C-alpha cells in the first residue's frame, strides 16, 4: 500500500507541469473568461514557441549532465549576425534562412569543444561565452536591424508555420532521444558518466554533440525570434536563459542529468507561457513579472529536490 502511494507521488511530481498548466489555466479562465477562446489558446501556443525552443536547448544540455547559461546570447548573436549579413549583402531569403542555424551550431560547437574535449567547467565556460557573445552582438550591430526579406521572417511570423515547425522539432527530438543510439548516449553520459565511459561510450563526443544540438535549437530560435518581431532588436532574447532553465526543470528534467522527458520539458515551457499570459492579461507590471519569474526558477529547484527525495524513498522501499 505504502509503495503504491509513493509511486503515485512520483508520478504526480514527474508530470507536475501538466497538472499545473490545467490548474493555472482554469484559475485564470474563471477570472477572465477571455482566456477560454480558441484564438487565445492558439496565440498562447504561438507565443510559447521562442522560449520553447530554448527550453529544448537547455534540456538537451541538462540531460547530458551539463549546463548552459549562454543560450539566449547564442540566439541573439546568431540572429544579429545573420540579420546584419542579410541586409548588408542583400542575401536571398532562401539562402538566408539556414544562416542563423549555422551560426547557432557553430556557437554550440565552441561551448561543446571547451566543455566536452577540454573538460572545462560548463558553468564558467558558458558564462564566459555569454559575455563574449553579448559583446559580439553589439560589435555586429549597435542598433536594431529592420527591413528583412519577407520570406526570412515568415517562419516566425506566420502562426501556423511556427506552431507546426515547433511540433515537428519536438517530435523529432523526442524520437531521436528515445530510439537512436546516439540519442540514448546523451542519457547515459548524463546519468552516470563513469559507467558510460566503461560501457564504451565516447563521453567527450557525446557532450560535444549535446552542445551542438543545443546550438542548433538556439539558431532555430533566432530565426523564430526575428520573425516574431519582424526585426532583430538589439535586446533580442535577453533574459530568456533563466526562463528556459526554469521551464526545463519544472518539466522534470533533472538537474543531476540523465533523467527527464523532452515532452514534459515542453510542458514546462507551456506552463510558463500560461502563467505569463495570465500576468499580461491582468496587466501586472513588468517588474512584478520579473519577481514571479525569479520565484518560478526557485520553485523549479524545490520541485526537483522533492522529486529526488521521493525517488530515494522508492529506491529504499523496495
Amino acid at each position, binding site marked *: 500500500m505504502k509503495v503504491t502511494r509513493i509511486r503515485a507521488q512520483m508520478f504526480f511530481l514527474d508530470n507536475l507541469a501538466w497538472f499545473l498548466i490545467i490548474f493555472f489555466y482554469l484559475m485564470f479562465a474563471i477570472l477572465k473568461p477571455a482566456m477560454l477562446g480558441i484564438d487565445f489558446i492558439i496565440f498562447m501556443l504561438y507565443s510559447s514557441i521562442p522560449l520553447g525552443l530554448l527550453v529544448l536547448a537547455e534540456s538537451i544540455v541538462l540531460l547530458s549532465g551539463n549546463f548552459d547559461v549562454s543560450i539566449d546570447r547564442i540566439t541573439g548573436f546568431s540572429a544579429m549576425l545573420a540579420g546584419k549579413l542579410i541586409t548588408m549583402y542583400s542575401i536571398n531569403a532562401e539562402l538566408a534562412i539556414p544562416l542563423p542555424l549555422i551560426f547557432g551550431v557553430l556557437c554550440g560547437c565552441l561551448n561543446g569543444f571547451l566543455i566536452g574535449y577540454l573538460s572545462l567547467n560548463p558553468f564558467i565556460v558558458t558564462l564566459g561565452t555569454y559575455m563574449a557573445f553579448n559583446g559580439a552582438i553589439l560589435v555586429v550591430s549597435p542598433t536594431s536591424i529592420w527591413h528583412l526579406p519577407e520570406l526570412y521572417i515568415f517562419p516566425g511570423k506566420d502562426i501556423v508555420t511556427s506552431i507546426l515547425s515547433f511540433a515537428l522539432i519536438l517530435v523529432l527530438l523526442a524520437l531521436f532521444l*528515445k*530510439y*537512436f*543510439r546516439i540519442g*540514448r*548516449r546523451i*542519457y*547515459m553520459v548524463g*546519468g*552516470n558518466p*563513469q*559507467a*558510460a*565511459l*566503461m*560501457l*564504451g*561510450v565516447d563521453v567527450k563526443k557525446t557532450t560535444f554533440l549535446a552542445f551542438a544540438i543545443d546550438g542548433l535549437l538556439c539558431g532555430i530560435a533566432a530565426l523564430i525570434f526575428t520573425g516574431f518581431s519582424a526585426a532583430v532588436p538589439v535586446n533580442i532574447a535577453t533574459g530568456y536563459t533563466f526562463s528556459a532553465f526554469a521551464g526545463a526543470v519544472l518539466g522534470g528534467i*533533472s538537474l543531476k542529468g*540523465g*533523467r527527464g522527458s523532452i515532452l514534459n520539458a515542453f510542458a514546462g515551457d507551456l506552463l510558463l507561457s500560461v502563467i505569463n499570459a495570465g500576468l499580461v492579461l491582468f496587466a501586472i507590471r513588468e517588474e512584478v513579472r520579473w519577481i514571479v519569474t525569479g520565484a518560478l526558477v526557485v520553485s523549479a529547484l524545490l520541485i526537483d529536490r522533492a522529486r529526488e527525495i521521493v*525517488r530515494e524513498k*522508492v*529506491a529504499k522501499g*523496495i
Partner: protein
Amino acid sequence: MGDVPLIEMRKINKWFGSVHALIDVDFKIYEGEIVGLVGDNGAGKSTLIKILSGVLKADEGEIYYKGQKVEINSVKDSRKLGIETAFQEQALIDYLSVGENIFATREPVKSLLKFFRIIDYKRIFEDTKQELKKLGLNIAPMKEAGFCSGGEKQGIIIARNMRFRSKLVILDEPTRALSIAGVITVHEYIKQLKKEGIACIYITHDLHHVYPIADRIVMLNRGRKVLDVDKSKVTLEQIEKMILRFAFGEEKETFTSRR
C-alpha cells in the same frame, strides 16, 4: 585452464611526466581464473587496469589475447575482446531500465524506412527477461535500475556479462566501503562468474578480502610487480610477511612462482 593465457601483458611501461608509474610489468590471467591484484595506493594497480580496459595507453609493452598480439586503444577495443570493467557504482546507469542497462551501447536495432536504424526495445525487454530467468531472477525488464536492490543489481551485471559472453571482468575495489554482508555478495558474484567460465581480476588494497577467493595473488609495489603466486603454494601469513618486507623497502628481490 589451458596453457595459453586468456590475456597476457608483457613488459608494460607507463610514465606520467617524470613519474615511472609502471616498470616492466608482466601480467597474465587464464580463462576462468580469479586473480587478486593487491598493492598500496599508488602502486600502479589502477594504471595497469586502465591500460587493459583501454582508458589509458601504455608507453611501452604488448598485450596478447589468447596468444595473439592485440592493440587496445579505447574502451570499445577492450570490450570487443570481452573485457568488462565493472566498478561497483559504475556498472549501472540508475535512471535507465534494467533492459537498457544490460544492452547499453550494444542495443539491437531494426530499420525504419530503410534509412534509419532505431533501437528495438521489444527485443531488449524480451531478451532481458530470458537472461534474468536463467539466473533465477524475476525482475521486470522495464524497471529502473536505480530501484533495484543490491542483489538484483549484481544479477543485472552478471546477466550482461553472460549475454555478451564476457571473458574477463575487472573489479576495481569492489568491497571498499562495503559491510561484511556486502563483501559476501561480491564474493558470491565472483564465484558465479567463475562458474560461467569468466575470469576475474579483483583489485584491492586489502589482502584479506581477496585471499579467500583468489586463485592467484599478484602484488605491485611502486610500479613493479613484486609478487605473483598461486594461492595453493603460499599461506596468508607468508604473503603478509612479504608485504611487510616490501613496505619497509629492505628487500629488493621479488618472489614469484611461475606456473
